[in-house]
């Protein structure tokens, strides 16, 4: 495998997996909370939150990337604050790529979880309450197990989106080999130079492989969870 891919290509694949996994891991908990708030919350600004979450899905990715650059860049208000107080730098770093991917995948993650939260029979939660479970326990023993298939589906969508994210990433963190040059960025680079067709083709195959494996894994997991719930 290492011989089949050039070191440059191999680096891009590794970096893409790292970025996608990071993006997915860090969005799960916020995604779950936002999905719960949107599905069940009755608070002022709920509609606004809904729009905000879905914005990256509708806006051109370049716009999202540019907004990220403005706010999370070195001189952006959020970027400057984080760099100064936490030493956290996003611009032109792989962490920035992960941030861009997380934000682009967030609406997909939230939508999948939200649908499964809305499908939960709240009468089961009532029953758990009468059996002595406080609201936190009700969540962990009843709600969470019941939304697990949706949560897994959302995570896969978020991961897949991150593997393929291009527009926002390249706008926000550019295309720096070894740092921010993810798989799609390198494919793009290959298509811009003469003789790059071979590399582009190899990376395309890798992309397809990763997508298929992720999809099969999630389908298998979801089917097992469904069987557990229904059998």
């Amino acid at each position: 495998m290492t011989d089949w891919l050039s070191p440059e290509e191999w680096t891009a694949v590794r970096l893409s997996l790292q970025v996608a996994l990071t993006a997915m891991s860090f969005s799960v908990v916020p995604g779950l909370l936002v999905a719960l708030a949107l599905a069940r919350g009755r608070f002022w600004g709920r509609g606004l939150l809904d729009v905000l979450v879905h914005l990256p899905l509708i806006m051109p990715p370049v716009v999202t990337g540019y907004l990220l650059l403005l706010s999370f860049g070195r001189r952006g208000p959020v970027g400057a604050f984080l760099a100064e107080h936490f030493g956290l730098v996003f611009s032109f770093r792989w962490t920035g790529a992960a941030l861009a991917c997380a934000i682009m995948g967030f609406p997909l993650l939230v939508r999948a979880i939200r649908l499964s939260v809305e499908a939960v029979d709240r009468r089961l939660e009532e029953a758990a309450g009468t059996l002595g479970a406080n609201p936190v326990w009700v969540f962990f023993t009843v709600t969470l197990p019941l939304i697990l298939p949706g949560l897994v589906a959302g995570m896969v969508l978020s991961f897949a989106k991150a593997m393929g994210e291009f527009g926002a990433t390249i706008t926000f963190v550019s295309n720096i080999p070894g740092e921010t040059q993810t798989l799609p960025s390198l494919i793009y680079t290959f298509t811009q130079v003469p003789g790059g067709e071979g590399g582009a083709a190899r990376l395309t195959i890798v992309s397809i492989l990763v997508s298929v494996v992720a999809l099969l894994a999630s389908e298998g997991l979801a089917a097992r969870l469904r069987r557990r719930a229904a059998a």
Partner: protein
Amino acid sequence: MTLEVDLSHPLGAFRLEARFRSEGRLTALFGRSGAGKTTLVRAIAGLIRPEAGRIVVHGRTLVDTANRVFVPMHRRRVGVVFQDARLFPHLSVRRNLLFGRWFTPRNARAASVGHVVDLLGIGHLLDRRPATLSGGERQRVAIGRALLADPQILLLDEPLASLDEARKAEIMPYLERLRDETGLPIVLVSHSVAEISRLATDVVVLADGRAVASGPATEILGRPSLFPDLGPTEAGALIETRVLSHDDAYGLTVLQAKAGTLTVPRLERPVGSALRVRLRARDIMLALRAPEGLSALNVLPGRVVALAQADRSSMDVTLDCAGDAVVVHLTRKSADRLGLRPELLVHAVIKGIAFDADTVGPTLRNAPAGHI
């Protein structure tokens, strides 16, 4: 145990304004749908917060809006069995049963799993998933799950309503055992007189959000004016009897009531066992003299206590048959022809085949066998 309820809460177009007190082992909340039964149960369980009122169980105040007391549902120790069972689909029957146990303090765990499983006959279901159970099995598991959370009172919200007749007949004996063997006070929501006559020690009648009557079952069920919806078909008095003998030649059983004997179709009950019988008001005729040359096997002498007009053409006559209240539904014309009036001595005539599975059920056993 005592259950004290005094509630005011909006209920559809009107208000639930229920006030009653019950000390029974099995208190039935009776009323047609929309009368406020389920709202009442949800308030006792803590699933809704009543606008105003008080709920006290066993001297423990669960709700007192005047003093800002509201115990959250998970700290109430009020077991609930819902009409739709609500078993957790992601857990096996065994883990459904043990669910409440995680949240019960160790020293409060009185109910034993083995005992509850035996009581409800669900031992063979433990490794199954709820989705594979029949409706009756689901309700039994739901009852077991509620019991194993060691509640101080058990609320059954129409547990039989969604089941067919066969499944109802399957569960009924378990509810009787629950009432007689656990010593746990039970509140049963029902709109079936047959269910209540068979199970209840006490009855609270709800109509349009108000508790219009409450008291011992035998007394309340003998007042047909409280059950206008039933019409003449189901209303009737409830009396306690004992099996006197069996007549194998004719396939009959003789029951001893206070005022005399009743001969009914053969019942598989040992001689001497106690049995509750509901005498449907429409199944009884009245005679001024002891009848002769009549096919009906059952004649109980009694004294007219009260007459009440039921509608334009019919009346309800309440008799005192040696201490048992018996209600008779007849036409106004018949009542006038017989010259019925209070204190008149009459004979109530009941056909033997008027007794069926809906009207004859085992009575309460005398002493509860302690807590499970």
